[in-house]
């Protein structure tokens, strides 16, 4: 009996979240509209509880559990803590927005927590089955979240696109996994890594398997040329959902990619590196150039996401611990900036008005100097201008590619980030140089403002002292590989 419990102990946070989701589902069904805050409070409590459980059982070395399906290592623990933080911030930012649009229902919280559970499983998976299980739990929750605003045609269209393309990507991923199974005879990442490093004669199925897996991963990350869903979904989904999709799942996707490529296919670096180089260059190019042409901020940030994923891939394609650590730093920083960027749209929105057009940011410095300053920090951080943390994220991935001798790739990356700087600067221009044409007061609640201030200032504070976060990333990767 105790043996059985030990097997489950590493998965305690996941089990706790699952139990709480079920509880919230039941409670929410029993309360009326005036008491929806119960689900909100319970969701935040769930996140706090899960964080407590994760910290309490923080592992210093990898522990395999559940018969090798599940791994609890420093990497997964650190990423989970950031997932809780990100999801909690999303919930706080979204509250007012959801309330004014009649979406403030238990379903949102249940779906968000289910998505979180999926991400936690992805982060802790050591087996193709658990990886896929987590991914699908996340994806299905996200499809439903996008479609939650039933009477909006755009949202339904976005959900449909997301679902069809997501299912296609999952199919590719499964196909690639089955080929790898054929080559190695195992679905456990550790066995696959072992088997492949011993060498195999089945080169062709192996390479095909890698191609399918990389294509599937690229779909999920939104890397070019598998990016077409990103702008439509980001644009069409209610902004609160966009905020969710644009932040936490990127952290999980990073773990997903590192687990498969970095741990399972470690010995095949030479095969997948070139594929990632192409994906990274195309993503940075298309993302940054297409973003210039956007007039909708959500769409612009969608293209910016694509380019940021390209940058993140630079770290991964280095194929070293240094590279993975850099990519992890990049993705955490990206999640922070993305939260702030979309959060600002939510904050400026009010009943019947979406502040998602570039024009809505005109003259923000006159309406609210503080919010404009925070957005300024976020935009310069996305552009990678010091002293904001975005610069160190770029620095770390650039040094990772220079280390493996790909100086040309670093040069290409900085040139694309120069193009990218243009549209971030344009936001700053709108806020500071132009006069507002919308002068209605900003109605955000105090707690949202406080969290937004913390979010914006974190970008600056981590820029002045980046070491703690960087050390956490390097340590987590170092202790888990």
């Amino acid at each position, binding site marked *: 009996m105790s043996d059985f419990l030990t097997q489950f102990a590493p998965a305690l946070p996941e089990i706790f979240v699952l139990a709480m989701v079920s509880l919230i589902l039941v409670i929410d069904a029993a309360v009326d509209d005036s008491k929806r805050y119960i689900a909100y409070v319970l969701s935040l409590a769930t996140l706090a509880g899960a964080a407590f459980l994760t910290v309490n059982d923080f592992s210093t070395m990898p522990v395999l559990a559940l018969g090798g399906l599940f791994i609890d290592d420093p990497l997964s623990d650190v990423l989970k803590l950031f997932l809780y933080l990100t999801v909690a911030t999303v919930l706080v930012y979204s509250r007012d927005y959801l309330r004014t649009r009649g979406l403030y229902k238990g379903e949102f919280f249940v779906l968000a927590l289910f998505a979180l559970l999926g991400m936690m499983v992805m982060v802790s998976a050591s087996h193709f089955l658990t990886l896929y299980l987590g991914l699908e739990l996340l994806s299905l929750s996200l499809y439903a979240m996008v479609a939650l605003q039933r009477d909006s045609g755009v949202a339904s269209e976005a959900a449909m696109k997301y679902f069809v393309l997501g299912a296609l990507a999952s199919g590719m991923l499964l196909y690639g996994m089955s080929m790898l199974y054929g080559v190695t005879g195992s679905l456990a990442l550790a066995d696959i890594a072992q088997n492949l490093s011993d060498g195999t004669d089945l080169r062709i199925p192996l390479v095909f398997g890698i191609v399918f897996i990389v294509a599937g991963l690229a779909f999920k990350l939104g890397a070019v040329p598998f990016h077409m869903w990103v702008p439509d979904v980001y644009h069409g989904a209610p902004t609160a959902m966009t905020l969710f999709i644009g932040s936490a799942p990127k952290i999980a996707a990073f773990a997903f990619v590192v687990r498969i490529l970095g741990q399972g296919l470690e010995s095949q670096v030479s095969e997948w590196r070139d594929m990632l180089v192409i994906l990274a260059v195309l993503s940075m190019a298309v993302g940054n150039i297409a973003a210039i042409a956007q007039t909708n901020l959500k769409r612009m940030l969608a293209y910016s996401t694509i380019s940021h994923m390209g940058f993140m891939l630079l770290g991964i394609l280095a194929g070293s611990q240094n590279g993975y*650590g850099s990519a992890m730093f990049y993705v955490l920083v990206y999640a922070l900036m993305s939260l702030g960027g979309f959060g600002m749209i939510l904050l400026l929105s009010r009943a019947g008005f979406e502040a998602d057009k570039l024009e809505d940011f005109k003259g923000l*410095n006159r309406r609210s*100097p503080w919010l404009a300053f925070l957005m*300024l920090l976020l935009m*310069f951080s996305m552009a990678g*201008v*010091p*002293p904001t943390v975005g*610069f*160190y994220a770029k*620095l*770390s991935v*650039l*040094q990772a590619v*220079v*280390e493996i001798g790909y*100086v040309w790739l*670093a*040069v290409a990356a*900085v*040139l694309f*980030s*120069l193009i990218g*700087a*243009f549209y971030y*600067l344009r936001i*700053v*221009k709108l806020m*500071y*140089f132009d006069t507002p044409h919308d002068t209605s007061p900003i109605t955000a609640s105090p707690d949202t403002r406080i969290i937004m201030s913390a979010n914006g200032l974190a970008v600056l504070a981590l820029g002045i*002292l*980046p*070491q703690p976060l*960087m*050390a956490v990333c*390097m340590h987590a990767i170092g202790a888990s590989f």
Partner: protein
Amino acid sequence: MFGQSILSLVIWVPILAGVAVLATGSDRNASLARWIALAGALLGLAVAILLLTGFDTATSAMQFVEKAAWIPAFNVHYHLGVDGISMPLILLNSFITVLVVIAGWRVIQDKVAQYMAAFLIMSGLINGVFASLDGILFYVFFEGMLIPLYLIVGVWGGPNRVYAAFKFFLYTLLGSLLMLVSMIYLYFQSGGSFDIQTWHTTTLGMTAQTLMFFSFLLAFGVKVPMWPVHTWLPDAHVEAPTGGSVVLAAITLKVGAYGFLRFILPTLPDASHEYAWFVIMLSLVAVAYIGLVALAQSDMKKLIAYSSIAHMGFVTLGFFMFNPLGVEGGLVQMISHGFVSAALFLCIGVMYDRLHSRQIKDYGGLVNRMPVFAAFFMLFAMANVGLPATSGFVGEFMVIMAATKVNFWFAFVAATTLILGAAYTLWMYKRVVFGTVTNPHVEEMSDINAREILLLGVLAVCVLAMGLYPRPLTDTMHVSVVDLLAHVAQSKLP
């Protein structure tokens, strides 16, 4: 008491003062913001003077060194220090900041706190550029100063300010991003160090040196700015408010030139010698051709902007003569240009505040209405021409002497500036100040007030003092320059 961390104070006092100014909030507290800004700027200058009094001119080693681990993951340190090359520049910057705060006292009525704060924060960041001994720290300050400058040009600038702000930002970002890649490359070549002095002794192959030479050249050349990457400067100058123009010309251009001495020459000596002809050629084009361009300007700010480019051409020319006279001449020219261009832009600001025009043709006969101003303007115009006994003469003379030693024709082309500079400056002066009053608005102009006399008077003293007795300045930099050139003379090929 602060002896150990005085360089940190030079950087952080203005920045913290800027934050304090920002905290005063809206324009209702404008006068409070102004006084805090002035106090912060004066305090910054006081710290810089304290730095000067403790400075030892007999050694080329870095002084007031501070070193602490900052980002151990990449072996980046918070590493500060000054030598004879950076010391005068820090002093110049802290001094100009005070002038800029005073110059914006009345003129700026909109978002005063943000305006003052932007200048103070930028001043701290620029001091950081001059004091950094760690590549990443340098880069952070180097890039960080773009943010306040972008806002200064964009928020308080003229009608075409958006275009100018974008052009300026993207131009300079292009150069610095390529430099960043070079720095990362150096990091790996030097065995994992971002320490600038370690880079000075790192062996590098010729191909690597060449590629890095051109990436650094682009980064610093854009900032200087050298022909043909100078086109952002006239736009930015014309659109910037007076204070912005002063800082742009007096300080930010020096950051580029400083980069040549701190990075390019000592880190890449072989490439520097190999491609010296290229830089010399660009410098001579800047001196001669841009001088002609300046002659054709009808906008006073544009004219001074082009004249700045021509004067900075002298600086880079001096650096690539590889002898102490040339490098010191370039440095003297930098400081002198800091005073003279600041003064000229302030003069244009004085006229602009009264008539709201920068067009030469709108003026004429100013001497009748503003005799005191006309006298000051005359002095600074003469300094810009390089008249002996003004600071402008010293640097140009030293560089021309140095160039004569290397190649007569370099000196010959460089010396055309004495003619061209006189032509465009004095011709402008004649059209603006002398003659009869044709524009009725000029009749209504009042002479400069006490605040403006103070500003221009202080600068006049500096210009004359430097012109009459430049010895303290050259003494400060001499040992460091000789040491630098000894470094540059050694090949670093493997």
